[in-house]
């Protein structure tokens, strides 16, 4: 399983160890996020450093292709993903079935394309849940400071490294197998990581000039936090959200693989792989196709996230 709360490549931003160690203690890069939030935002125009590179562009194109094919799946010249042709079980690639058929004669390519839908649904649910909890959490902690900040961050620390997949299994066992329940859980348990990043970007803005001016003009604290501070502190949270989306895609597949997500007849990358892998030597395409789809999906999203990091955050 990959890493929910870590923000992948951006090592210094991802987490400080426990509450006890001040972030600045991690000298090589550890304290870099606070100045970056100020310096990067204060100037004219975009504060970012590099351009959106080649690899992120490839990722963006792949991601758009996946998204388009999942939206336009009914219009594509492919078979119905549910239609079984029992005379054509475990068939190899042919013109009619480009990637062959699975163990009950369903078109492998068609199921991989339709599988995008449940994957993106799961990712969407997870991201919404994470934002709904994480953004208010981080904003409140960073903007209020003091005891509230301390309490909110302690709770975040406590949840930060809880394995999301295991908790999702726990919730599914209580509420019944449902990919929505599972992904809401995964989103919620990933929220502390987002909150932590947002908080450290908000914290240095509390005393910023534009906040003091807004306050002296009598703008309410809530409005200052949401309209003025949040847009200026969003960069690391955006990068983290995209990184989390890539992780959610894999978790959705993992849960379906374990039979705890999307129920069997519906096309789903994880569930399709689970039913095909025992017959791997007989019909490798049926196992390879959904796995490759997950890999391309997760990689494209995280490549976009890396590109956004280069653009939005000064390193």
């Amino acid at each position, binding site marked *: 399983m990959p*890493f929910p709360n870590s923000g992948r490549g*951006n090592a210094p931003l991802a987490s400080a160890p426990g509450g006890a160690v001040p972030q600045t203690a991690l000298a090589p890069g550890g304290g870099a996020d606070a100045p970056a939030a100020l310096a990067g935002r204060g100037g004219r125009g975009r504060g970012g450093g590099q351009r959106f590179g080649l690899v992120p562009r490839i990722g963006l194109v792949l991601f758009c292709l996946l998204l388009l094919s999942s939206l336009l799946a009914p219009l594509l010249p492919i078979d119905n993903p549910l239609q079984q042709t029992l005379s054509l079980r475990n068939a190899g690639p042919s013109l009619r079935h480009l990637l062959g058929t699975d163990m009950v004669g369903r078109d492998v390519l068609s199921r991989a394309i339709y599988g995008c839908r449940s994957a993106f649904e799961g990712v969407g649910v997870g991201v919404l849940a994470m934002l709904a909890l994480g953004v208010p959490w981080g904003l409140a902690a960073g903007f209020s400071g003091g005891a509230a900040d301390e309490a909110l961050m302690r709770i975040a620390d*406590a949840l930060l490294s809880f394995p999301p997949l295991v908790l999702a299994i726990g919730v599914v066992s*209580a509420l019944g197998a449902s990919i929505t329940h599972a992904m809401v859980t995964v989103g919620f348990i990933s929220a502390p990581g987002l909150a932590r990043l947002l908080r450290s970007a908000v914290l240095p803005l509390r005393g910023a000039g534009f906040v003091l001016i807004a306050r002296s003009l009598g703008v309410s604290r809530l409005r200052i936090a949401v309209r003025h501070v949040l847009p200026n502190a969003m960069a690391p949270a955006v990068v983290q959200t995209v990184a989390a989306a890539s992780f959610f895609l894999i978790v959705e597949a993992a849960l379906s*693989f374990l039979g*705890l997500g999307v129920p069997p007849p519906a096309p789903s990358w994880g569930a399709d792989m689970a039913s095909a892998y025992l017959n*791997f030597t007989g019909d490798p395409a049926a196992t390879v196709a959904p796995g490759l789809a997950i890999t391309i999906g997760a990689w494209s999203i*995280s490549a976009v996230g890396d590109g956004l990091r280069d653009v939005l955050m000064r390193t």
Partner: protein
Amino acid sequence: MGAIILRRLATSVPTILVSTILVFALRYLMPGGPVEAMLGGGTGQYTPAQIAAIKARLGLNAPVPVQYWRWLTGVLHGNLGMSYYSQQPVTTVIAPRVIPSVELIIGALVVSTVAGGGLGILAAVKRGRPLGRAVQLGTGLGLSVPDFWLAAMAAGVFGLTLGLFPAVGFTPISQSLGGNIDTLTLPVLMLSVVTGSFLARHVASAMTAALDSPYIRTAWAMGLPPRTIYLNCALRNAAAPVITFIPLAVAALVGGTVLVENIFAIPGLGTEIVSSVSNEDYPVVQAIVLLVGVLVAVLNLLADVGLALFDPRIRNAISE
């Protein structure tokens, strides 16, 4: 040093408490609550008197905080309840499951630290050159590959087709060490791909930061051999930020073991939790979730204490 450990210990108590509250709260998520979960097929066929008797037996009439306290003291005494499925104490059910999972996690942690560390150093040293880019691209890909897919294919290719390793099953270490290693090789390697890539990324970025710092420039100017500069000067400073990511790696490995154990049919906590979900054996699921939460918290603690031992800057920051 003792003071630092105590101070850090004090901060991990709330962490563990929050996980216990989380796990305790899970049972109230169930549509029918704990009673229905215990009765299985729904409460319809039972008379209100019977349900009340079960409620009384389970102590469900007490206020929720009191119930939590009773449950928590029970857990601290090693009483995790009875399995609904096997009618045995939960501790008896999960105790034999711990060792295979821990073996998997430790094995994968060692492999991914060594391989990930090496690749990360390589990526930082060869940064901007084809080899460095290849490593960055490879680790990026390694982070996106679902480990259960690799595991499934490895079981098929190396296990079934080539017959190099057993495709499924597990030999306990008490039975045969060689057999144990044989059955664990593929699962450990497959688990290490994602974690190794993750650590490689973090080692690379910490190494890059260290290699850009003035003391490294001085070291080059002094004419130290590259090997000394990379391994003795830069790596030592780069290691501190990386150690903080090891607990995250462990948390991710725990998720990965659930899948890999199910593919290779290893009788660990991962296979137990999945079969308990399908058996609706809620106490076992709850116990495993709790165990995992506490395990990760303890590893966090160890990593932070290790960090303080390792890096005097952090030691000073904590004791201030």
